[in-house]
């Protein structure tokens, strides 16, 4: 089934003990969906394409930005502003033109997840937010697809394999056995908020690709039933044994989840159950056409310098000291780059007594997309 060129391309792994032509043919017949073409996605995609996975799905709705490039090594500086999924496909096809790549330029949601995932043998979670992680976990559980999980924070990473069916036909633990319910969002910082050392996703994403290869070929021992924790600061690691938990709403004593839910709401559940009001760029523009809403931009000075929509600049970390500059008798529209930091700012303002707070959904990136494409991306 492998042609001559493939025998040469994959020779170094074909000659491995227990791998052989048979292992390579399993990779060729396999299909893998990589969710997120960012920090974790890059090494996953490069090494899975290089290894000869027959069909690779790439899902990412985001565009390349300058602050991605310290860790998202698939992209060129000249590709800033272009679709990550499309750029990735182009680059990977140059590495291995024998692979069939399929791209999805839209977010994975409760409405499309089952349809998309159903077409693949194995799923890789390289996403960058908790709602997507719970969504992908639940969808893979309902469809019985093995899920290779990876996540990063500052200098630390986690890897595991979920839903894998063992030789006795039993399905392994999943994400909800590790983390049954999400903590409040402010305790789950993204890379944008908490920072990340650029090489960490290289280590963790490569480990995920390695698990995919073991799941597909059946060689070695995967991380099913184990959570691997890694600290790049001191190169220590730790492996925890994970079992099915009685409290798991999918597989536990009271399995109450039977279909996908609203994961944004599930993960945003703040202490008081308070919902943050959001405004779309278009509605904000209409407001601006009629009057002068107070727009609070909580990004950093240098971000504001690159592009802004005329808001008042108070960087998030100065907000507490500069509350006096914000009116408390009118609506305040809070904005940042993508809508994450502005939510934090709204939480802080709410606790300080401000009431009429609105979040610009999707931040300046959404504004650029919907209103003003001439704004500079970063």
């Amino acid at each position, binding site marked *: 089934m492998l042609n001559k060129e493939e025998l040469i391309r994959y020779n170094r792994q074909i000659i491995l003990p227990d791998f052989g032509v048979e292992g390579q043919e399993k990779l060729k017949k396999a299909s893998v969906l990589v969710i*997120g073409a*960012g*920090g*974790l*996605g890059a090494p996953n995609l490069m090494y899975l394409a290089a290894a000869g996975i027959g069909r690779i799905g790439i899902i990412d709705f985001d565009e390349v930005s300058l602050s991605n490039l310290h860790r998202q090594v698939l992209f060129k500086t000249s590709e800033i502003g272009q679709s990550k999924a499309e750029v990735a496909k182009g680059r990977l096809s140059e590495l291995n033109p024998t692979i069939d790549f399929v791209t999805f330029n839209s977010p994975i949601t409760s409405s499309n997840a089952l349809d998309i995932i159903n077409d693949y043998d194995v799923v890789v*979670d*390289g*996403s*960058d*937010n*908790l709602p997507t*992680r719970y969504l992908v976990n639940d969808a893979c559980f309902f469809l019985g697809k093995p899920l290779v999980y*990876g*996540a*990063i*924070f500052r200098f*630390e*990473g*986690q890897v595991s394999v979920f839903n894998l069916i063992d030789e006795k036909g039993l399905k392994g633990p999943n994400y909800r*056995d*590790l*983390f*049954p*319910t*999400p*903590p*409040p969002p402010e*305790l*789950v*910082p*993204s*890379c944008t908020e*908490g920072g*990340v050392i650029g090489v960490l*996703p290289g280590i963790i994403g490569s480990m995920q690709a390695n698990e995919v290869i073991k799941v597909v070929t059946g060689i070695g021992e995967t991380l099913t039933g184990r*959570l691997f*924790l890694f*600290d790049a600061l001191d190169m220590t690691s*730790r*492996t*925890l*044994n*994970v*079992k099915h*938990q*009685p409290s798991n709403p999918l597989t536990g004593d009271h399995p109450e989840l039977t279909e996908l839910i609203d994961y944004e709401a599930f993960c945003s559940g703040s*202490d008081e159950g308070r919902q943050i009001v959001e405004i779309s760029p278009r509605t904000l523009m209409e407001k601006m056409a009629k009057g002068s809403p107070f727009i609070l931009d909580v990004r950093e000075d240098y971000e504001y310098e690159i592009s802004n929509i005329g808001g008042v600049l108070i960087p998030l970390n100065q907000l507490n000291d500069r509350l006096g500059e914000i009116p408390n008798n009118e609506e305040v529209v809070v904005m940042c780059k993508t809508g994450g930091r502005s939510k934090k700012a709204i939480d802080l303002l709410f606790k300080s007594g401000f009431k009429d707070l609105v979040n610009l959904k999707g931040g300046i990136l959404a504004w650029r997309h919907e209103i003003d494409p001439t704004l500079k991306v970063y």
Partner: protein
Amino acid sequence: MDITVTAFGIAKDIIKNKEVIISLPSDRSVGALRSLLSNKYPEFEKLASLKFAVNADYVEDGHELKAGDEVVLIPPVSGG
């Protein structure tokens, strides 16, 4: 009885150390340790739903701790 708790992720920020030693009173359950941590570090209360691992195994709140046990606390991490 003293118990060493190792924290990962944001839990490390909350207890301001990778490791902290907690003195357990007569009640030696994981649930009791959870309460002690919440008293000592108010922010910790927000992580109340999280699981503990003891000597590399995930355990429930009823689990009784022994001297020398190594407790690990791992909050979810979202970055990619």
